């Protein structure tokens, strides 16, 4: 049974240097408080996989030197523009990039969830994404004549990390409509979750809540983190902190500014 860890830092024990870490897209629940803890802990050599995109979380981890390899369909700060630390790292050749496309990541995680070695995916043929993904294969669809199709290998990350509205004491986590979080946890070896609050009852006992619940069976550690997605949004709970994101975009545009951001908002929060 998963444990409710005494602290975020404690819950993150599974995220070791060099591990393959899967993270959620912005609208699914990004564990930003935990991300800051990883930066403070000086986690290194992460192989980060975004399902299927990332925003400030990937940019922050990359800027702080935590990431060696990145697989994603995009990293962007949305209306606040490109992700500056991500772009700088790619341009500097400091990041082993695996450019993907959203449904390829969904398919690869679903194959991982099912324990199958690969998944087929239409599209891609003739793109430079496929050209650079030498780990992807093209076969002839055996159910048709002269019909090439891409196979993407399954993704089974070491750890999946996300933020959710609530968990109960048995470690069941309510994820609502964010079904890819279930897929991510099913595919991963271990799953670490931060939550806004502890639900007093049993999430699986009520059929309506159970429909949106990821069973504790898949969860290794849970930590309480109120407003744990801040400054990103937690859908249906709180919106993005637009001002803070604008400030991040402004500061992260330069290495010095980024260092000031870390000092002010990431390292400082240790004391807070």
């Amino acid at each position: 049974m998963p444990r409710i860890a005494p602290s975020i830092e404690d819950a993150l024990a599974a995220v070791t240097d060099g591990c393959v870490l899967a993270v959620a897209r912005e609208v699914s629940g990004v564990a930003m408080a935990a991300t800051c803890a990883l930066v403070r802990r000086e986690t290194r050599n992460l192989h980060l996989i975004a399902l299927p995109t990332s925003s400030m979380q990937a940019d922050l981890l990359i800027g702080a030197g935590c990431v060696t390899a990145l697989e994603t369909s995009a990293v962007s700060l949305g209306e606040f523009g490109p992700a500056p630390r991500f772009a700088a790292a790619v341009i500097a050749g400091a990041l082993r990039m695996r450019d993907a496309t959203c449904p390829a990541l969904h398919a690869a995680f679903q194959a991982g969830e099912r324990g199958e070695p690969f998944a087929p995916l239409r599209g891609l043929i003739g793109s430079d994404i496929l050209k650079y993904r030498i780990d992807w294969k093209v076969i002839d669809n055996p159910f048709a004549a002269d019909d090439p199709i891409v196979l993407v290998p399954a993704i089974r990350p070491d750890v999946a990390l996300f933020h959710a509205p609530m968990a109960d004491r048995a470690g069941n986590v309510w994820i609502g409509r964010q079904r890819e979080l279930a897929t991510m946890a099913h595919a991963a070896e271990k799953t670490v979750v931060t939550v806004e609050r502890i639900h007093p009852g049993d999430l699986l006992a009520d059929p309506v809540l159970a429909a949106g619940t990821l069973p504790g069976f898949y969860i290794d550690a849970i930590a309480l983190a109120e407003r744990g997605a801040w400054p990103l949004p937690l859908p249906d709970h709180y919106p993005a902190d637009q001002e803070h994101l604008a400030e991040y975009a402004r500061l992260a545009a330069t290495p010095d500014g980024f260092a000031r951001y870390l000092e002010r908002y990431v390292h400082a929060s240790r004391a807070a």
Partner: protein
Amino acid sequence: MQAAPPEDSCRDEELLACVIRGLIGDARHVAVGNASPIPAAAALLARAEGQGRPYVSLLQSRKHNFFTDGGRELFDCAGRGRVDVFFLSGAQIDGQGNINLVAIGDPARPQVRFPGSFGSAFLYYVVPKVILFRTEHSRRTLVAKVDFISAPGTSAPNVYRPGGPVALITNRCVFLFDKDKGRFRLASVHPGHSAAEIAEHTGFAYDAPETVGVTPKPSVQSLRLLRGAVAGELAEVYPQFTAQVFGRRHGSAS
């Protein structure tokens, strides 16, 4: 916050939205990705005119978005033939309809790095009507050959491809895409722009009629819907855009 212009004139954004609405035609489901307020306005306009049809999925919206199966549902829908219209853009778009959302230069050590391809390398193949939308019309954005093909404009005959580009809308003109030729054809220039100007600012070769028409202005009825019901709905997802273009704020009375 500016007042909306009178009904006999229209803003560029309104013109573009109405052009796109025309291209949408009759559809069951129009999906709109992130950071696309003008396509979103066009899709909502189509629904307002179609009295509830098409279904419109604004991926950033909670309200205008019926998905309950996670982030994969859009792609599952599209793969299963249930997305009729989608919008894509490109940091670069070339004359063969190839789009680049990744990088300028060698992608391993690029000069410029863009966010990435998102779902384009799948959606461009399977959505029957993909409308390319790039307001900046310059030789920097519309190029002879993209540096990186996030998704190609056309595919070999044996590649499964029920979808692809039908048009490219810019701040200067409308190109239609000829799938068989794999080339764009200039369809109309927006009011105040000229065919010569298009040639000057386009980095790729394209077909053009001897005399090119002017993009028709929106009807009074369309403008009314756009500035009324559509602006009201749009404000949920694009508050700044809506305030700026339509002089509307989220939650303000219509």
